[in-house]
């Protein structure tokens, strides 16, 4: 069992990386557990909120569970609880392997872990207590913001130290990780402090637009792709198809993505030439994304069977298809022609779900499917069947939801444009909202199946029991 298809050649000679005390697997496991816990909470919050739209919100009249607050719990829980935690776990796994150096300090890792959970928990409590900040995706109460920035700086120190200590050519993933660690701290500071303390009015809208977009584009996207560049070649046991295309993808993203933000506020009083600039930059991103997608699918060529036999690969590549879809969608929906109709509608909500759940959620779930058994010391998954259900329920739920919300958006947009009375537009939306709730329910059910499977697998790991999972279960853990 030797390693490793990707990464700089010097790694290839080494024996199993984990024979060195390189990776603290307990930290990774704890991040995954925290991540999944917040995932479930945030999904339930989303489900509850969706019932508002069917006039049957279960907690109506309870101030702390006011639907607006629960909506923010849903989005912030997913961004900072689910995605950030899972990514921190992924970084703790991948960075030391890519640099052959451990992180700066084990104690620091634990400190960051604890601090981050406190940040997410107090964000949740703060939002429910009615202390939100009027920055979309950054509703974190203002008194938490400095702590969060400090936390991000510590993450940077912890993760960048092995990168700096390591000499020699860097693998693609590391470019993404380095840049993402810098960008995340900058983005968070920009979005949470500038519009609050220094810049008001219309100009603060521009900054908030940048923040909304950079959070996805400069924190979630680069870490997500960095992890894909790491896991996909390892599982497929072959290198990424083209180094040149990786370069194009990275630098294209680095240049164009930060220029996109204002497209969230088209037709506002923000100067029109900046809106046009943001639109062009967004379309450019779509071209860049295409190169990345081509690179990954060319890598898959000849190993296509893995989509069927290897569950993590299936999660990853279906996520990539969704990624390409969202980006293609973006190139159109960002134009003023589309904006006129679809802005403010459920079309955008569908788009957001496709990105957060369909892409990054899928990648994270794939990563968990791949790593979880070995993190708990099991030789495979408890049940391959449950894993399969997990995938299909998530995927079908996601597809139904995004198609449904896209249609809802078109109906709403044209109804508004036709000057339909507002109440009637609600009537027109109701069937779509009903389907949305069911689709979300399927996605959540899938996660409960996964949860059950994880609990069973973990207890198997503790008892040192044998596998029943096999390959389809994602039991390939021979990195």
């Amino acid at each position, binding site marked *: 069992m030797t390693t490793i298809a990707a990464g700089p050649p010097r790694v290839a000679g080494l024996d199993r990386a984990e024979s060195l005390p390189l990776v603290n697997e307990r930290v990774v496991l704890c991040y995954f557990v925290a991540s999944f816990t917040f995932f479930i909470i945030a999904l339930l919050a989303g489900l509850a909120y969706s019932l508002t*739209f069917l*006039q049957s919100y279960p907690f*109506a009249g309870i*101030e702390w569970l*006011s639907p*607006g*607050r629960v*909506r*923010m719990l849903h989005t912030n829980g997913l961004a900072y609880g689910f995605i950030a935690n899972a990514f921190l776990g992924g970084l703790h796994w991948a960075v030391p392997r890519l640099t052959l150096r451990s992180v700066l300090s084990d104690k620091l890792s634990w400190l960051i872990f604890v601090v981050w959970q406190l940040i997410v928990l107090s964000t949740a409590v703060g939002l429910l207590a009615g202390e*939100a*900040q*009027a920055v*979309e995706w950054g*509703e974190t109460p203002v008194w938490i913001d400095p702590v969060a920035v400090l936390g991000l700086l510590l993450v940077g120190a912890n993760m960048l130290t092995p*990168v700096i200590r390591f000499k020699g050519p*860097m693998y693609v993933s590391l*470019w993404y990780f*380095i*840049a993402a660690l*810098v*960008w995340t701290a900058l*983005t968070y500071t*920009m979005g949470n402090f*500038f*519009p609050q303390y220094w810049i*008001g*009015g*219309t*100009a*603060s*809208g*521009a*900054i908030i637009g*940048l923040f909304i977009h950079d959070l996805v584009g400069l924190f979630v996207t680069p870490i997500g792709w960095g992890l894909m560049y790491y896991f996909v070649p390892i599982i497929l046991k072959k290198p990424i198809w083209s180094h040149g295309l990786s*370069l194009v993808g*990275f*630098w294209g993203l*680095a240049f164009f993505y*930060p*220029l996109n*933000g204002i497209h969230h*506020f088209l037709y*506002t*009083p923000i*100067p029109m030439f*900046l809106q046009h*600039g943001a639109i062009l930059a967004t379309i450019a991103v779509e071209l860049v994304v295409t190169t990345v997608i081509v690179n990954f699918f060319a890598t898959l060529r000849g190993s296509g069977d893995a989509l069927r036999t290897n569950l993590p690969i299936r999660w990853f590549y279906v996520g990539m298809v969704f990624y390409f879809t969202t980006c293609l969608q973006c190139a159109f929906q960002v134009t003023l022609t589309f*904006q*006129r109709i679809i*802005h*403010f*509608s459920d079309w955008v909500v569908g788009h957001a779900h496709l990105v957060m759940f369909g892409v990054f959620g899928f990648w994270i779930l794939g990563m968990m499917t791949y790593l979880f058994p070995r993190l708990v010391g099991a030789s495979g998954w408890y049940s391959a069947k449950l894993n399969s259900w997990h995938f299909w329920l998530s995927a079908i739920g996601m597809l139904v939801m995004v198609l449904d919300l896209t249609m809802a958006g078109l109906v709403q947009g044209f109804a*508004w*444009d036709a*000057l339909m*009375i*507002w*109440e009637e537009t*609600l*009537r027109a939306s109701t069937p779509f909202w009903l389907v949305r709730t069911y689709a979300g329910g399927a996605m959540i059910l899938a996660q409960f199946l996964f949860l059950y499977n994880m609990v069973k697998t973990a207890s198997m790991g503790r008892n040192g029991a044998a596998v029943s999972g096999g390959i389809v279960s994602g039991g390939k853990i021979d990195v």
Partner: protein
Amino acid sequence: MFESKSGVLVIAGLAFFIFAFIVMGALPWTIYKDQPELTALELADRGLTHEFVGLAEQFPERFAEYFGDVTPGAFAEALTLGRDVYVAEACWHCHSQFVRPVAREDIRWGPVAHAREYSNELQRPVLFGTRRVGPDLSREAGRRSNDWHIAHFYDPTSVVPLSVMPRYTWFFDENRVPNKKGMAVISFVQWLGCWVDEYPYYEEGLYSNPAPMPSAGADDELAKHGDAVDEKA
């Protein structure tokens, strides 16, 4: 350079980000720098709204208890608190606060948004919003009566049967009289757009005067209306 640590860190991580921040963030700020950002008190000094005074007249004791006398200072306090509630309850995730120059929004709500309208403390961070489950609120002032809002916040379906807006029962005391939060949030929505000379009551008109059965004359009227709509679009 493209694959070195310093290249990635300095050029991609810092330089590109700062470049984008300057172009897309700092530039609009310099453009609007000359518009002074008014404080809530300066806004209130421009005059109290009828609706704010109306609250004081309708609930004199409660009002006095919460805000004291009917002064610009009290109005500023109510607006600020109303805005805080608007943020805390995520009203801005269901309601936008800008009228676009497209999709006939000026017919439904009135004058298209202007940057000047946002140069004040209450729009920091700005409350443009990105989703409309309910209608835009930037032209809400005076569109409805205080009583309508009181009934609506307590139970939206009591006035709009299909409404999916949440109930805000905690804006009220045990006698269903708006409490401090309730008065503040009503003052806030009744203030939004009060600086605009006039705007249409599009839906109001359709509700209260259902169009008569089309006769020859009415047809012409409708046709004219249709033309106007098309021109504006």
